[in-house]
């Protein structure tokens, strides 16, 4: 193994910043990385073993223990549970002969859970050795496992036809479906590939390109909504030898899958957006951070990049523009939600744990390897191409005054037609429900677990105004019919995740608990608030639903929701949102569980809690005035 590892590291010039690639290659070879491997790596890369261990232990898809020949990562999104995940899990465990979290005795199957993998419209789904299997049912699982046991390959096991569109491309061959339900300006089919690079860049100065994007008021589509033009301008401003454009394809917010569809159907559009961004900001390094869950697109995306190189759309003096040199490399992640946060993403790109950086400095000042770095979402880059081609005024014809253009929504949950909907900003919740065929709606989660859970009942008063002020930008102060609330940066901002729950769903036990599990699992652990509070909040929630709660417990949850805002990054700051927004909008669900008259209730029993220690040291329990 040592020689093989040396061969791998030399493939990456023994560059410690390529540790992610190196570890992925080692996993491809033997399924895990051992302590001896880490010793070798440390020598080769000039790092300490601890540093390598830090990275290895951070990511879901890395392992220090041997795994199976087939490693099955079953998705645990809330929508997967709603579509029968429990039965699928049971069948998997029976057929594979092992429990989730372990490897079968014959070493054939490893079973694991994994957070949302961008397949919410076709769950429950699983990743088996980098291939995605969707719409799982007990029947399909039995057949699949029997096939694998009988020696069929995974490719042969994708026995049904492949998905629609480019999912059937020979380099993709996946059973994933795009489920595009509504197309507007971004997803329109008449895209002439690379027209902007070929014809328009040479006619405009970089400053003019930034100007067009600024004028269009395009805002980041990942969820935070930072003005894209401004980000580009900031990135230009800093003097540097190199500048970096990063495409953030770490789509990890549970419930979103639009980037997966864009990368499947419009990879050229996204890459063209990166080239335009590079031209506008004089960047020479391009990186796509592709979440590991989308690895099945890796070969296909690289083929597109190769085609672009052949046509001089990447490389040197691109499209005849003198001194415009830029190339793109795709970097795979290894399973970590927090890596969607731009500074954590950069850390990961440098081969480290995906822990967000303390800011300032911001990535536009000091990012990848210390260079000014612009991180844009997949959808943002795609939109930039349309804007440069058609002009800012054209773009302003769509959307509302504060939110221009269109937005891709990833709709899933209790509706007839889950999938991708491109809608204008300003579309109301009612319209989304109508489009997707959601008749029976109790609640809608807008923006994923870190977003807000809204009720479709009319809301007259929502808690105290003090709290409402704090929980901006949900904009819920205005009493209005929730149906008519509109998707926009001022009312309901969103990265596009829309999950619908019908009246049969137990919002607290099913939904909020699932979301809290997600945050507990995905915290990077850097800030104690985000590491601990979601755990404590879940315990408190359990206390409430088990009938031990008092009103004060609800208030505590809201107060802790404020405390968690001290965390360093967006993940931590929003980790309490499932609880907080469900209290604000569904307080009656909490109230019906708590004891109205009691002032305080704890389940603490001193006698019981000192018993273990006293027995061990050999002393009697003597309680004084407790």
């Amino acid at each position: 193994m040592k020689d093989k590892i040396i061969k791998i590291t030399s493939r990456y010039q023994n560059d410690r910043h390529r540790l992610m690639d190196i570890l992925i290659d080692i996993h491809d070879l033997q399924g895990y990385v051992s302590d001896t491997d880490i010793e070798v790596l440390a020598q080769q890369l000039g790092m300490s073993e601890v540093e390598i261990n830090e990275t290895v232990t951070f990511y879901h898809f890395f392992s220090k223990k041997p795994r199976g020949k087939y490693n099955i990562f079953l998705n645990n999104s809330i929508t997967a549970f709603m579509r029968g995940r429990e039965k699928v899990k049971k069948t998997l465990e029976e057929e594979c002969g092992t429990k989730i979290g372990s490897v079968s005795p014959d070493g054939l199957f490893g079973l694991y859970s994994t957070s949302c993998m961008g397949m919410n419209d076709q769950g429950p789904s699983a990743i088996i050795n980098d291939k995605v299997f969707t719409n799982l049912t007990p029947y399909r699982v039995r057949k699949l496992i029997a096939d694998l046991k009988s020696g069929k390959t995974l490719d042969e096991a994708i026995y049904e036809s492949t998905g629609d569109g480019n999912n059937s491309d020979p380099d993709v061959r996946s059973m994933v479906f795009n489920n595009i339900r509504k197309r507007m300006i971004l997803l329109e089919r008449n895209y002439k590939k690379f027209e902007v690079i070929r014809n328009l860049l040479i006619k405009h100065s970089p400053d003019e390109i930034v100007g067009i994007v600024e004028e269009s008021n395009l805002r980041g589509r990942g969820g935070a909504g930072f003005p894209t033009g401004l980000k580009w301008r900031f990135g230009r401003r800093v003097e540097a030898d190199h500048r970096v454009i990063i495409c953030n394809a770490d789509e990890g917010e549970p419930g979103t899958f639009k980037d997966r569809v864009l990368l499947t159907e419009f990879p050229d559009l996204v890459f063209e957006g990166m080239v335009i961004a590079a031209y506008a900001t004089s960047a020479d390094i391009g990186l796509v951070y592709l979440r590991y869950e989308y690895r099945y697109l890796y070969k296909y995306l690289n083929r597109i990049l190769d085609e672009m190189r052949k046509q001089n759309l990447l490389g040197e003096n691109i499209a005849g523009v003198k001194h415009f040199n830029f190339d793109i490399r795709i970097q795979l992640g290894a399973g970590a939600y927090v890596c969607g946060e731009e500074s954590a993403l950069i850390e990961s790109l440098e081969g480290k744990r995906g822990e967000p950086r303390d800011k300032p400095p911001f990535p536009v000042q000091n990012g990848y390897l210390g260079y000014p770095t612009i991180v844009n979402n997949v959808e943002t880059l795609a939109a930039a191409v349309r804007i440069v081609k058609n002009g800012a005024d054209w773009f302003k014809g769509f959307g509302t005054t504060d939110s221009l253009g269109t937005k891709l929504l990833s709709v899933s949950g209790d509706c007839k037609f889950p999938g991708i909907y491109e809608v204008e900003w300003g579309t109301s919740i009612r319209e989304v429900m109508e489009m997707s065929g959601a008749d029976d709606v109790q609640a809608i989660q807008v923006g994923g677990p870190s977003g807000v859970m809204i009720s479709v009942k009319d809301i007259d008063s929502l808690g105290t105004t003090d709290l409402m002020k704090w929980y901006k930008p949900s904009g819920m102060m205005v009493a209005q019919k929730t149906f008519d609330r509109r998707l926009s940066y001022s009312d309901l901002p969103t990265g596009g995740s829309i999950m619908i729950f019908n009246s049969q769903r137990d919002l607290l036990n099913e939904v909020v608990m699932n979301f809290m599990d997600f945050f507990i699992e995905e915290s990077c652990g850097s800030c104690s608030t985000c590491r601990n509070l979601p755990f404590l909040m879940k315990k408190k929630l359990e206390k409430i639903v088990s009938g031990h709660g008092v009103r004060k417990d609800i208030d505590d949850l809201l107060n802790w929701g404020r405390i968690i805002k001290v965390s360093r990054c967006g993940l931590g700051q929003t980790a309490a949102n499932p609880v907080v927004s469900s209290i604000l909008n569904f307080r009656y669900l909490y109230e019906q569980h708590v004891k109205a008259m009691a002032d305080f209730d704890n389940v603490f029993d001193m006698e019981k809690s000192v018993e273990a220690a006293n027995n061990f040291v050999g002393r009697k329990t003597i309680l004084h005035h407790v």
Partner: protein
Amino acid sequence: MEKKIIATTSLAGCFGCHMSFLDIDERILDLIELVEFNKSPIDDIKNFTKQVDIGLIEGGCCNSENIELLKLFRENCNILVSFGECAIMGGLPALRNGIPIEECLQEAYIDGPTVGENKQKILPNNEELPMLLDKVYPCHEIVKIDYFLPGCPPRAELIWNALVALVTGKEMELPYEVVKFD
């Protein structure tokens, strides 16, 4: 205006929050115009001598003495504040919560590399000692806590703002720079 009365204590904490309290520097002179201290390490009063308005609790509960002291504070304080990471969430001491208490004791007193001489394998069991709890509890799991002040330790600025707000009844200002984790 009548002076509000304050009491403070450190349970399973490191006194770092109290040190941070002292970082309000010369403003402690302003504070003393507004409040009077009762039971607290700051003036070294050992026992409550009257009912107190505001009690600040640093640290969570790791042993029986912590529990008793915390309950005593609850009885004697009108408002009780969990003050700092350990009081709110258990903090560093709570790192032992994932490990059975027997293993912790075994490691701390018998097997650990820094134990030194303990040939008779003595474990602390004198009745004078507080009894260890099975895990470290945040304060709100033992008594009702009215407010939570985050930080490890909470910044002096935050403590100052909070105390002034509590004493004067004005709304508290919590800019992100003051509450930010690091």
